[in-house]
């Protein structure tokens, strides 16, 4: 097996410093909706300048380069042990090159490892074997501010009169956005899972964030819910940075997963405007960074 450390390093650099085109386009559209001279528009203008400058300087878009979360789809026969080794090496190298901030902190002693290498869960790497001969690696860098405003609900929820149905899901999602206010760096994106156990539910909510912004949910009920939640969240008027304004949530992506009869979880992974996710595809000698 070849050594792909340099390719993983480039994937990290690209993700940390260069906003994906679909996200950049959506943010630009959000800017246009804000009133001229408003604090919201000023915030969006600053955001757009920053995106451009980060790309130009190859510097992190946000200083919180977050938890690196890798999703690796590998062909039969590849060594996940070697891939993991190469990914960890690339993460440490990227930290040395200041594409990443040293973020792995020992929860007991408070000591920062200095190179973003923690235990087995840090960085997070998910492996899945696939048919064919193509290696596909998705990377999400998810900052702590937005991770802190994520939430998990258990339906029914008496406080919100949210029942075990899609309207109940709608209510708790709006609650999550209301509770977050500007603290998760609005305008944000919602990765949502309905169902699962507590762990698999949060996992699925992050997987929802891998979807391109302009795709449509194949389930018509969920497609409709995604649109409704985005539209209604924007009626809250929280706006960019919580300054008040038209766009609070840019997009919502929902994934349904099977649940136990007794459990009905709704999990929200709130993604800040600095929605950093990139994909690398390796087939033979060809390497594509999307």
């Amino acid at each position: 097996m070849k050594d792909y450390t340099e390719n993983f390093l480039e994937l990290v650099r690209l993700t940390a410093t260069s906003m994906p085109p679909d996200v950049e386009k959506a943010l630009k559209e959000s800017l246009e909706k804000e009133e001229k001279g408003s604090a919201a528009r000023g915030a969006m203008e600053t955001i757009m300048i920053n995106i451009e400058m980060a790309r130009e300087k190859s510097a992190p878009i946000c200083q919180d380069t977050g938890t690196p979360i890798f999703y690796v789809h590998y062909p039969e026969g590849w060594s996940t042990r070697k891939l993991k080794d190469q990914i960890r090496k690339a993460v440490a190298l990227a930290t040395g090159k200041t594409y990443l901030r040293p973020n792995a902190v020992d929860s007991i002693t408070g000591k920062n490892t200095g190179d973003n290498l923690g235990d087995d869960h840090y960085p997070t790497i998910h492996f899945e074997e696939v048919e064919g001969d193509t290696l596909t690696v998705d990377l999400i860098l998810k900052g702590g501010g937005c991770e802190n405003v994520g939430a998990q609900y258990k339906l029914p929820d008496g406080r919100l009169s949210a029942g075990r149905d899609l309207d109940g899901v709608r209510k708790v999602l709006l609650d999550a956005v209301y509770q977050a206010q500007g603290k998760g760096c609005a305008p944000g994106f919602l990765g949502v899972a309905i169902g699962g156990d507590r762990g698999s539910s949060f996992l699925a909510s992050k997987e929802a964030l891998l979807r391109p912004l302009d795709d449509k949910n194949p389930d018509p009920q969920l497609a409709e819910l995604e649109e409704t939640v985005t539209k209604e969240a924007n009626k809250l008027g929280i706006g960019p940075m919580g300054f008040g304004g038209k766009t609070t949530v840019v997009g919502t992506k929902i994934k349904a997963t099977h649940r136990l009869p007794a459990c009905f979880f709704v999990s929200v992974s709130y993604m800040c405007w600095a929605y950093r996710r990139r994909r690398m595809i390796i087939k033979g000698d060809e390497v594509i960074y999307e």
Partner: protein
Amino acid sequence: MIKLTMPISDDQIRNLRVGDTVFLNGVMLTGRDTVHKWMIDTFIEKNRKPEGDDEEVYQAIKPLLEGGVIYHCGPVVAGLDTGDYAFVAAGPTTSIREEPYQGRVMEHFNMKGVIGKGGMGAKTLAACAEVPCVYFHAIGGAATLIAQSVKKVLGVHKMDFGVPEAIWVLEVEDFPVVVTMDSHGSSIHADIESKSKAEFEKLIA
């Protein structure tokens, strides 16, 4: 547009109102979760005895915080191996985590400003009126852009807290912020929260 240079006077703070755009100049310190807890435990509540260089660091930062500003920020820093530090990315972190500490820290050091994002709560707002002090909002995530305002890293304390949590001493030039909590009891955050609450209640009714 208002330009202010640290140390800032009480009169200058009283003249600021929510919505004002301010460009900050001079020396400021970074400080976030670990630093605020360390200040409270060691020097304000004193339920922990100073250890190692604690006392020395306290004496070094005290004069800088008199009329000074703390920036809630965990930067990406170049030159860690050589000590020739430069800020690469340095946007604000979410301030609300310091809510249990901030008011007392402002009072203790007679600080004039805190920079962060997302706003703070009632305790900090009350301290802002009392001290007086203000909350300056920087644009969250605009890290590369904001790093351009950091002209020089003058030094660093408490590197054992880790790079994001250390106390970085910075010289800044026209550091862009907006006042979102002033010393007259106004908070854009409290205002937006109550407006959005009314809308939220309609939507889930």
